[in-house]
């Protein structure tokens, strides 16, 4: 390949997070050596304590923004980065820690910490995009290694990365996996969840719990109505279903709030037309 004049400078940053996204990078074992040749790894504390000052060509950001210091830091990183990529559910949607967005953070502090007076935190856990312009988002908790590599490859080639935004179902079917929802009555968020994981959970006969966040046109209202009326879930079970790693993604916020009210079941049935939900007993009584 034609030699570049200068290797692009790569930085990997951590905010409020579990380090899983950075581990996904380190998990690219076969490509790591090559990556360190193609990029100048300028800042990646989980991999090396050697630090090169900015500016950076590419910044990968892990974690959500939860404190005033982090707000300042994400702005500083943005100023030093040509391309800034939010990586993972925390950086793209606020992460599991965004569960506090739904309650009073002061109450939460008192429940969790012995000495809450030492904890200084913002009211909400938010994605990087709530504070700075983000050039690209890689979803998932954690993101998928194949997608991370596709992004880095596309960056090096100067082309658009191919990271699809459709449902998990499509990749489930492409692999010939038998749908856990239709064949076993297991509630599955795959139809409203963005693909990228290779339909990992259905492959192991579990329902998707949405760790890649909402897909491009998430119809959570219809799926929830089906869960309530055909899978026999109670409305209060739907709330935690949508409130996990992507709880604060707008489409999932809307979905979880919709069923906070128990009367919503009736409304769901009415709004969706009853012929969709014939009221016969599910065939094996467990669905």
């Amino acid at each position: 390949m034609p030699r570049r004049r200068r290797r692009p400078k790569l930085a990997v940053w951590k905010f409020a997070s579990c380090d899983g996204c950075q581990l996904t990078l380190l998990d690219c074992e076969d490509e790591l050596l090559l990556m360190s040749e193609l990029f100048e790894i300028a800042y990646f504390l989980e991999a090396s304590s050697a630090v090169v000052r900015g500016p950076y060509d590419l910044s990968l950001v892990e974690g959500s923004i939860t404190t005033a210091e982090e707000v300042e830091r994400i702005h500083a990183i943005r100023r030093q980065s040509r391309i800034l990529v939010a990586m993972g559910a925390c950086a793209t949607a606020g992460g599991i820690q965004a569960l506090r967005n739904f309650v009073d953070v002061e109450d939460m502090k008192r429940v969790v910490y012995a000495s809450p007076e030492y904890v200084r935190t913002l009211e909400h856990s938010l994605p990087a995009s709530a504070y700075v312009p983000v050039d690209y988002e890689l979803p998932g908790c954690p993101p998928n290694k194949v997608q991370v590599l596709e992004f880095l490859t596309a960056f090096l080639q100067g082309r658009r990365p191919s990271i699809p935004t459709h449902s998990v179902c499509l990749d489930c079917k492409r692999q010939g996996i038998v749908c856990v929802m239709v064949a076993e009555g297991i509630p599955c968020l795959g139809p409203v969840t963005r693909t990228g994981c290779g339909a990992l959970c259905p492959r192991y006969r579990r329902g998707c719990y949405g760790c890649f966040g909402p897909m491009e046109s998430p119809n959570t209202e219809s799926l929830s109505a089906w869960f309530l009326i055909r899978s026999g879930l109670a409305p209060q079970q739907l709330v935690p279903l949508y409130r996990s790693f992507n709880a604060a993604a707008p489409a999932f916020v809307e979905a979880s709030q919709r069923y906070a009210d128990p009367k919503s079941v009736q409304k769901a049935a009415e709004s969706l037309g009853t012929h969709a939900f014939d009221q016969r007993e599910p065939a094996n009584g467990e669905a």
Partner: protein
Amino acid sequence: MASPAVIDVNGLAALIAALQQEGYRVIGPIQRDGAIIYDEISQLNDLPFGWGDEQEAGMYRVRRREDNAVFGYAVGPHSWKRFLHPSPVVLWRARRRGNEWMIEEPVEDSPRLAFLGVRSCDLHAIGVLDRVLHHGSYIDPIYAERRESAFVIVVQCAHFTPRTCFCASMGTGPKATQGFDLALTELVEPDAHRFVVEVGSARGAAILQQIPHRPAEPTDVTAAEHAIAQTAASMGRQLQTAGLPAALLANLEHPHWDKIAQRCLACGNCTMVCPTCFCFSVEDRHDLTGTVTERVRRLDVCFTTSFTYTAGKPLRQSIRSRYRQWLTHKLATWVEQFGTFGCVGCGRCITWCPVGIDLTIEAAAITGREQTTEGVV
């Protein structure tokens, strides 16, 4: 063609062995992960003896049968499209050497496949794919190669009650009359578990000669006809096809499309399970250094936004427009394009839609025609 024969269960085992002997990979039904799917069969016992299923819109369950029927189930989530129109496939690969690109065509290990258990609807679905990928002006070499070498063993639909399928309406079943190498009709009488075999081709006849069989008695043939007739009389769904394309296209702004859009998830399951939906997208992939690039083809569906990405944005932004594309393609514009419906009435899209959207009901609602399935559902 040769007159019908009868084989027993041992004959079925011998059939599998004879095909393997001829170098075919035998693909047939297997009960796995809560469904009857298609995969490679190595021996008789891989087949789903005593398994059936129960299906409704958005619901499928495998069930133990009371008898030991091998083929006592309606079609499951897989179709033969999986093997004839595989996904993903690497179309070509290019390697950079200095300033030059060397194009390599990947050597396809195009397997010789024998399909055991092709239902009449699916045989017609293969016929639909033939028109699209094989007989038209654009021939897909991957499909053509697999299709031409495929050995097709039909199993006529008998011993189950169809729930979501409607081949009788589409004129695609339940009895397959041509286009196969062999066609079996299972008879599960106690002490006389047997299969009436019709021969549809010279190579079918040649395989039959290799396995133990006897000529069919008139009683065998009558019993087989009776079993298939029972299926025909108990169809789960109906679709009025006369004038349907024009009626759908005259109702493109019908308010019912909005109602469907409220329920449709745009998940693409219907198109993926449909045995005739053939759409794919093509994408280039590179290695990190940009020295190897591959062009990959994979199945795609008209329910994604990227499917109609044109000149900077997707044309079909609403779910309404995407569902309408699917339904009108299957039941209207396909006819203009390829001279048949794009639907053979297999019912898969109804069963495997996670929210049970039923195209027979939706087409009837949109065209304002009598909806004849309600009583059955």
